[in-house]
């Protein structure tokens, strides 16, 4: 199993969720984060003290999937989260050694179904 971590633009979340559901992903976890990258932040102004805010609000999506779903899921995310503008975000893939469903104690494939 793999853990897919995607950093996306917040207003894309709903779209991504729908697309992932369609290909059979049954669960995911999202976090409000702030990202720093090539996309420039904005300037803020407080009583004349101008300063640059480098960190931009993004949404982090974590999706645990079985190996055979990885490729499809990544493609789905790329397609739905892409706006073609800088700052669309990144996808990270790490290996998941085990997954357990707390309620039932089921593991791995069963835990993800």
């Amino acid at each position, binding site marked *: 199993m793999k853990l897919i971590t995607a950093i996306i633009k917040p207003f894309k979340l709903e779209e991504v969720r729908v697309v992932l559901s369609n290909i059979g992903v049954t669960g995911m976890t999202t976090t409000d984060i702030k990202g720093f990258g090539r996309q420039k932040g904005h300037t803020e*102004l*407080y*009583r*004349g*003290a*101008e300063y640059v805010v480098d960190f931009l609000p993004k949404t982090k999506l974590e999706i645990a999937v079985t190996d055979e779903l990885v490729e499809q899921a990544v493609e789905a995310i790329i397609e739905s989260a892409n706006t073609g503008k800088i700052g669309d975000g990144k996808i990270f893939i790490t290996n998941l050694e085990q997954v357990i469903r707390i309620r039932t104690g089921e593991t791995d494939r069963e835990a993800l179904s």
Partner: protein
Amino acid sequence: MKKFLDTAIFSLVATGFWPTLAYADQFNAADTAWILTASGLVLFMTVPGLALFYGGLVRTKNVLSIMMKCFAITSVVSVLWLLGGYSLALSDGGSWQALLGGFSKLTLATVNAHTVKDNLPETVFCMYHLTFAIFAPALIIGGVAERMKFSALLWFVALWEILIYVPVCHWIWGGGWLSQLGVMDFAGGIVVHTTGGVAAMIGAIMVGARHGFPRVPMPPHNLTMTATGAGVLWVGWHGFSAGSALMANGSAGIAMLSTHMSAAAGSLAWMTIEWFRFGKPSVLGLLTGLVAGLGMIAPSAGFVSPLSGLVIGLIAGCVCFFSLHAIKRRLAFDDTLDVFAIHGVGGIIGSLLTAIFASEALGGIGQLADDGISGQLLAQAIAVLSVLVWSGLMSYAILKLVDKTIGLRVGASDESLGLDISLHNEQGYNY
């Protein structure tokens, strides 16, 4: 205009300026109704008005400490006012009347439901003035926010109230030497804004800058809170200005209109400057201009025409914008919420402008001192200067004393943790 009316009122009445005034030892119920209301409005300016305005401007970790200070100051000053402040500020001082009031009203023991002060029940007069005595020191905390000890602040405020606010109030509104010079201060340009603004500057310097200032940006944590507070200040200020007529009459109406126009013009001026200079107008800019307008009109509100109010507001927006930026750039000191640049500078300039805009030629009610504008300008300058020096020196002395005894400032790690937890064991938000 307050107590000083006593000496000036008859000429005004003679000129038909005050249309209804029953000068018996009976109070006027209509005036009473209005001043009861106005007292509520001015109290509203401090709690929760200023608490919200200032609270939104600090960082999350210090929001409660600011609000706490507003409430605690309100309570402490109220008790002091009852015990002796009122008596020393606004009762007759007999032979030292030029300098200070007397002792006859200590603990308000001789004030009851049928004591009358001019056109008002004295209770109402006393309560109304109390709300001003609260607002002035509350202003100061903006200068020392995010680092001053709570205990040190309480001691400072208590001493400041007695040693600075009370005498200055007496000098100008209690029949003291400045009122005898004919100084005009309708709603506290000198008594409230100059005293408080100067003290905030001295405080900011003596407490020292916040760690990281000015390198680390310390943006307001909640500007909706600040905007709410500004709205409350705007509304409450109508009690501050129009209430200072101490009557429900055309003078109150003029004060309300002029004040309102000054606030409007101040906000538009600041907004426009920002728009040209930074490309975008900010909410905080607009609100700052608004408060600058409110502060600068205070000394002249009931003396000038509404159109002059507008002009004063424009001046306020421009002057305070540049004073704020000058101070920020020179970085001389960390006046956290810019109290001196706005209230200090605004109050001082406004007090001087009063001499000009009060001119009958400009629709004002005329000067009170001899020799028209120049004579009045002299009187105003004397008043501003002496109050500036008095408040500055005494504030310095009190802060020095407090520093030597209990210390002015929290430790570095407490400052970094935030005053809410380090001083009050609480957090503003637990979402």
